[in-house]
């Protein structure tokens, strides 16, 4: 990303004392956009997945991009804490829940219909505050050395059984996991979801930081199954073709087979709304969609761009019957519920 502003900051550092600093500091200049000002993106998607995409956008648009990487849920909470006083232009998130949570706090600008039109309605916010950019399925990744596909249950609820004690790994603070728990709440209610979380906790799972770490834990033999998104496997496999891990899809309609989207929304706080719009158009355009199809092994959402043929077709994966737009409303209380079950902390 742009290097010179960072170096400039470092040079400024010697000159600025903290005492003086509390008194001064410039507001972003009003008026037309400063073309040298970077487009600030809060990215809940990992650098090794989308760093290249940002670079392509910088090259084609000439707009410098500054990215703050983190987990989607973490960045959604940060945006909430900032309450519109920060300086981010865009929120590029890993799941619909964290996008919705930010949108529900009134921090996002509405997108015009023509911009979101290429994306099917079920993959975007009904109020057009965010739009899906790629699709992904929740799966159960498993260790092919110790398990066969036939050994695995067809429902996520079966993993609460004591026979899975000490064999499961997942990332409880990860936004995609939280979105799946939100979907479970919408599908079967809070009481049953709490029961499932408690039973999973009793199974002494290995708690990891994120999806990649979860797959690594399976590959190392630390756990046998991991609750993850489908595409991380392909990224690791590109580096290590003999990775002893495979994806298992749960039965249609099961909360564990949620089809979610990664997506983007424009933030009111940003100083570069025009540049932000160009980035949204880039993501839902052919170049962005091809990137998701070929580089990250996700499902492109625009008709005409085909996913990788090794992937199970999106039409065959039937998630629970919940609206992605409803996940955002549930996210804050879902995070609380996971934390209270002893899994979040």
């Amino acid at each position: 990303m742009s290097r010179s502003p960072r170096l400039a900051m470092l040079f400024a550092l010697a000159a600025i004392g903290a005492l003086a600093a509390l008194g001064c500091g410039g507001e972003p200049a009003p008026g037309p956009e400063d073309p040298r000002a970077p487009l600030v993106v809060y990215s809940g998607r990992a650098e090794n997945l989308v760093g290249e995409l940002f670079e392509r956008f910088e090259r084609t648009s000439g707009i410098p991009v500054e990215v703050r990487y983190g987990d989607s849920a973490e960045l959604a909470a940060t945006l909430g804490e900032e309450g519109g006083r920060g300086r981010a232009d865009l929120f590029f998130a890993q799941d619909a829940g964290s996008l919705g949570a930010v949108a529900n706090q009134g921090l996002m600008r509405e997108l015009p219909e023509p911009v979101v039109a290429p994306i099917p309605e079920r993959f975007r916010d009904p109020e057009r505050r965010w739009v899906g950019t790629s699709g992904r399925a929740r799966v159960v990744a498993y260790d092919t050395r110790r398990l066969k596909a036939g050994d695995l249950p067809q429902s996520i609820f079966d993993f609460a059984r004591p026979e899975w004690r000490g064999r499961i790994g997942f990332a409880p603070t990860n936004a995609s996991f939280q979105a799946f728990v939100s979907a479970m709440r919408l599908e079967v209610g809070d009481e049953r979801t709490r029961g499932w979380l408690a039973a999973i906790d009793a199974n002494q799972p290995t708690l990891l930081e994120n999806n990649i770490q979860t797959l690594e834990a399976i590959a190392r033999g630390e756990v046998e199954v991991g609750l993850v998104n489908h595409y991380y496997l392909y990224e690791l496999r590109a580096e290590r073709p003999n990775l002893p891990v495979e994806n298992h899809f749960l039965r249609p309609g099961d909360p564990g087979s949620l089809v979610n989207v990664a997506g983007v929304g424009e933030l009111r706080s940003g100083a570069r709304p025009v540049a932000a719009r160009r980035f949204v158009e880039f993501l839902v355009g052919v170049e962005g969609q091809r990137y998701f199809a070929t580089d990250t092994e996700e499902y492109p959402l625009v008709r005409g761009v085909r996913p990788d043929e090794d992937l199970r077709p999106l039409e065959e994966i039937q998630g629970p019957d919940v609206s992605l737009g409803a996940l955002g409303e549930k996210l804050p209380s879902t995070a609380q519920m996971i934390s209270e079950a002893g899994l979040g902390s």
Partner: protein
Amino acid sequence: MSAGGRLPLSLAVPAIATAALVTLPLAYLVVRALGGGPEAWAVLARPGTAAVLGRTILLVASVALVATAVGVAMAFLVTRTDLPGRRWWTVAAALPLVVPSYVAALALIAAFGPGSPLAGAVDSLPGVEGAPDVFGYPGALLALTASTYPYVFLLTAAALRRVDPAVEEAARSLGRSAFDTFRSVTLPLVRPSVLAGALLAALYTLSDFGVVSLMRHDVLTRVIFTQYRTLFDRTPAAVLGLVLVALTVLILVLEARARGGARPAGPPSGRPATIHALGRWRLPALAFCAVVVGLGLVAPVVVLVGWAAFGGARVDGAALLEPAVTSLGLGLGAAVLAVLAALPLALLAVRSPRGLTRALERVAYTGNALPGVVVALGLVFFAVRYAVPLYQTVPLLVFAYLVRFLPQALGGAHSALLSVGSRLEEAARGLGRGPAGAFAAVSLPLLLPGLAASAALVFLSTVKELPATLLLRPTGLDTLATEVWTETSTAAYAEAAIPALALIVLCAPVILALLGAPERRLEPGRPGAAPARRLVEQA
């Protein structure tokens, strides 16, 4: 500048401003926690919280205990026995200080973690049901002990050298055995130093974030960070932050009680102490030293070099240069700023001692009781509401370093001023120089070595700092420490080895310069002794 005179305004204004500013994060954290509803405080009543507290206390207590046992044993061996290569061991035992604790943890995971060659070898042994789990309590205990025992070692070794041999000889002549003499005569004399070392180990462990996160051990710092990251209501994180501050204060109080009225041993005696012959204990003693130094220093470096060289990591020198320059810049900036901020406070406290100036200096030590994650939380909450232009900027990040590490600069500036005195400066003023001119021309050159040592301490702490850097850094700014963190969060341990080694390379020369040649520097009373002692006393 006599004690009763008026306070010089040019010193009082910056001193008061600094003291006020460094209390800001704590003050705002209290405001935030009190402003939260009963739901936020309900976090205290959760059963999980009690378990977290229990784990925190257990880890702090056991690291302090083991580090003290190891540190005292090493100090006794190098000062009181005929251990072969004593001088060499004196240097080697302090050297694990160059390995940041989370780098030691990273090396442990790389060596013993699941999927590592060692774990594989253990697994393949017949009749062994898997290698023991390095994650959790055992790993955290090992990594933190290896990182903190040098504090106990350095302080205890220096104190042992100060003990007057005549006291021990008198005890022996009255028929006490060598062991009995050590237990009942020597140990009580060095107890304040041992306790000070144990205190440092305990406080270090309590505020540590990197090791417990890598080891996935849920103690307070990690839980605060997780709550902050994932919960939309961040008040519970503030409440837990205050619990962490309370624990810190509790430890400080306990240490003060245990120390009681004991004073450090007096000036060094000119005579060397009795040297005990190790006899048949020579080999076990050597093995003990080798294991300690091996775990704390050799193993981490070897493992990291191994991972970097053979772990399939892509070594990209250019990609490493930027975070290295950033770390260097932040470290230098924080060091200079901390010394500049410390000088007025120390000058007032030393040269115009009275209630107000002493209170100001004490307030400036607040940072000692504030773990990085707490400082960061307070500043995020504050900046986003009242100082938005500073939010996620380098000045605010450097200010966080100032809050945390000002005590290190203050301790150095204070003792340097005490040793220099003000007579020469008064003479210069009598010859017609103004106050500033006299200070710059006469005292400053004499103070410089002491101030440089203080700056070096702040530099070291800053480049290793993790939690405040993670939460406060500007978007897109990476340091060596955050690079290590980022790579480990995707389990890319081989990739993490490279910035970790770079961090050691950055820290090592500074620490070596501070430690100096042990025989010369650790000898108290000699001019060079101050920096080494300060390194541990203020760390």
